[in-house]
């Protein structure tokens, strides 16, 4: 028989205002096995914990029930308390009488009744608890960073500077990501490439960083500290070790129809190309869909002209298998497809562009060499209309768009407006806005500068319609401050399109078993207190993959994710969760059903000799690898013979709880 102590916490007034804590403590006293029961204002405080320690010693307790907040909050705290008093930590049970009781009840009598029932269930469980000992697993001291934009680069640099190896897997032929496409950055207006490319070079030259470009994660197995990743390195049809990045092949290539992704499809490129001048690795890539050699078997001009002999038409995808201790998701974003918004005529006129396209038009390395011209006829525009919140802040039931604020659009639109007015003072600039959201250091000052110094015409209201006229775009919108509808004949319209997670994120989330929200942003372990960790152990989040953010925030989060990774990798071993599954050899039939449902690949089979009264001979039996098992319990409910059970949450323990509740 266990000797059980029950400790009822008031949580200040959080519990005590809705639950009669004294009544709970009193009721618990009459439960079988309970030798001590009390209540206290704050059980988690040092005084409260001392009370538990003393009671364990004084009453020679073998089990402890704490009636308090959710075990997510303080289970670890109370387990430590038990350990310091010489009790096995798994002899502690929490009855959640706050989140599951006081916070959801208004009536004291009802709340108290439920609290007593929850306490009774926990006491019934403790009777069947057995001491568990946690094992350990080793840590592979290498990190995988998925995505080579500013988030991935910064995380990799910070981890590598701490002395750990890092692989960056980037799906594009070069690292750099979205930031490489930007012209200037707010609120300082320094050139984006000028601050990014040195970081790209640092990453490339760092002895601890290995950049695997033009590659994607194919599959992943293992668990925190011990991941095994298969990485598909896509065939770029160029020998990376030989290519010098001289660019002769890109000049000679006669195919000129492929859209230049780096310039958002505003111009074309050869079938063999280097995405941009500062690309890392500075190695060409062949777009086999456009290449004449791949389509007709002829041409081969690049091969003839390559003095390094780097062209490899027969190159195949390659699978690399690598082991990692931690994984950082830094998959970034893309602008949404603006063509869903017919009212803005994006599909009808080349002069209606998205902000990222405008960014390329303004960029000195862009399709117009930084000269602001109308895409339709190359003429100088005289009047430009910027429309904010295109596809942001829409309701879930609206036919298109995203429910969230994309966060960066107010600032980059102010930047665009200012840059246009700075370079071309003759151009009239109008900005339609709903709210100018500019929280951030020097952000509002920046926006006000656009209004006050650059005389940008900010119009509070929205554009209802853009129609394509003979030689201009007719913009019709509302001016809510002046209470009038206004009509502007513009030469260009720039849409501040919402941003969304990269389309590869969803499949990656499934592969990593990392949870995501309905918008495909990765979910953090706690929205306030664990913002850079995924709820999946060993998976960390960096940049827009977690939610919309600007460059300074991304860099800060990247550093925070790196700190968490370093904290993990500097450990030599990790304590495993002892609440894992195990098979009862006498009952197991070796049917393989548990193996099939196990999401972690923790179950294998062994042929074992069994000598029991019913059976004598060799039997196929399930074996659980305790280091890989996460204790999810899928196998225990699948097992048809009841052989699988979860330590700490056994079928008998759970049934005892149910019986206690139904008593």
């Amino acid at each position, binding site marked *: 028989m266990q000797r059980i102590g029950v400790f009822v916490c008031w949580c200040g007034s959080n519990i005590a205002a809705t639950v009669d804590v004294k009544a709970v403590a009193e009721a618990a006293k009459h439960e079988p096995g309970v030798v001590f029961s009390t209540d206290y204002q704050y059980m988690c405080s040092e005084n409260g914990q001392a009370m538990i320690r003393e009671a364990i010693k004084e009453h020679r307790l073998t089990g402890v029930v704490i009636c308090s907040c959710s075990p997510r909050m303080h289970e670890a705290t109370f387990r430590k308390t038990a350990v310091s008093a010489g009790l096995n930590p798994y002899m502690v049970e929490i009855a959640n009488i706050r989140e599951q009781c006081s916070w959801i009840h208004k009536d004291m009598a009802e709340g108290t009744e439920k609290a007593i029932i929850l306490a009774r269930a926990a006491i019934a469980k403790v009777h069947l608890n057995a001491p568990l000992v946690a094992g350990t697993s080793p840590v592979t001291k290498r990190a995988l960073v998925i995505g080579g934009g500013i988030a991935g680069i910064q995380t990799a640099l910070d981890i590598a500077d701490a002395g750990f190896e890092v692989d960056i897997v980037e799906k594009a032929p070069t690292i750099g990501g979205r930031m490489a496409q930007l012209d200037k950055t707010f609120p300082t207006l320094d050139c984006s490439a000028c601050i990014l490319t040195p970081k790209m070079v640092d990453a490339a030259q760092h002895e601890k960083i290995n950049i695997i470009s033009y590659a994607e994660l194919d599959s992943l197995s293992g668990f925190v500290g011990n991941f095994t990743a298969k990485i598909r390195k896509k065939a770029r049809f160029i020998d990376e070790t030989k290519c010098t990045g001289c660019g002769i092949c890109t000049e000679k290539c006669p195919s000129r129809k492929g859209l230049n992704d780096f310039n958002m499809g505003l111009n074309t490129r050869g079938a063999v190309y280097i995405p941009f001048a500062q690309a890392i690795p500075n190695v060409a890539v062949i777009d086999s869909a456009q290449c004449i050699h791949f389509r007709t078997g002829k041409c081969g001009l690049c091969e003839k002209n390559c003095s390094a002999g780097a062209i490899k038409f027969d190159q195949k995808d390659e699978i690399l298998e690598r082991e990692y201790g931690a994984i950082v998701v830094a998959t970034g974003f893309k602008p949404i497809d603006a063509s869903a918004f017919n009212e803005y005529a994006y599909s009808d006129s080349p002069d209606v562009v998205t902000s990222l396209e405008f960014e390329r038009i303004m960029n000195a390395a862009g399709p117009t060499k930084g000269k602001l011209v109308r895409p339709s006829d190359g003429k100088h525009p005289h009047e430009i209309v910027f429309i904010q919140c295109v596809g942001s*802040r829409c309701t879930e039931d*609206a036919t298109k*768009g995203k429910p969230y604020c994309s966060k960066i659009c107010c600032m980059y639109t102010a930047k665009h407006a200012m840059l246009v007015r700075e370079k071309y003072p003759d151009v009239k600039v109008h900005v339609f806005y*709903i709210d100018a959201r500019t929280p951030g250091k020097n952000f509002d000052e920046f926006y006000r500068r656009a209004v006050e110094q650059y005389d940008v015409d900010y119009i509070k*209201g929205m554009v*209802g319609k853009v129609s394509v006229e003979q030689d201009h775009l007719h913009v019709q919108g509302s001016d*809510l401050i002046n209470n009038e*509808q206004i009509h502007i004949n513009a030469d260009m319209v720039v849409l501040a399109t919402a941003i969304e997670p990269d389309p590869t994120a969803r499949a990656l989330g499934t592969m990593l078993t990392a949870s995501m929200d309905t918008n495909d942003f990765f979910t953090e372990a706690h929205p306030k207190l664990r913002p850079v960790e995924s709820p999946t152990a060993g998976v960390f989040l960096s940049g827009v993959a977690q939610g919309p953010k600007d460059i300074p925030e991304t860099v800060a989060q990247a550093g925070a994710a790196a700190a968490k990774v370093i904290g993990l990798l500097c450990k030599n071993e990790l304590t495993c969760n002892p609440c894992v599954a195990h098979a009862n050899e006498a009952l197991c039939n070796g049917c393989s059903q548990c193996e099939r449902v196990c999401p972690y690949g923790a179950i294998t089979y062994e042929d074992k000799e069994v000598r029991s009264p019913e059976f004598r001979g060799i039997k196929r039996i399930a074996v659980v690898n305790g280091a890989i098992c996460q204790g999810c319990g899928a196998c225990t409910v699948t097992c048809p013979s009841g052989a699988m059970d979860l330590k700490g949450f056994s079928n008998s323990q759970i049934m005892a709880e149910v019986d206690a509740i139904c008593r």
Partner: protein
Amino acid sequence: MSLTNTVTAEDLIRISGVDPSKCMQCGKCSGACPSYDEMEYHPHQFVAMVRKGQIEKLMASDAIYQCLSCFACLERCPRNVEPAKLIEAVRVAVIRQQGMNHMTANDIPEKLDEKLPQQAIVSAMRKYSK
């Protein structure tokens, strides 16, 4: 809604099925409206004024008849507020207060016109009967 009592915001919300609290007052509806200049109150104001309970002003305004029911506001609203349905509800509220001048089933045969869509008749029934 009774015929004698004043019309409340709740009445209009019930008739139209519109939830004005979803509106973020971006003004895209009024930016899209082709009758904007004719209307005393504009689509976004209908939503805001219903929210604030200023129903009498709306019911007294000619703006309700200047709305073309083109549904541009409804189609483009990023928050699916559907201002056109709210304006329609105000119109209906006014008509219902005018007494028992609504259409009956017996009136239909003489109104039938091969150019008139049958749907219009059905919706007229719905609109003008209580």
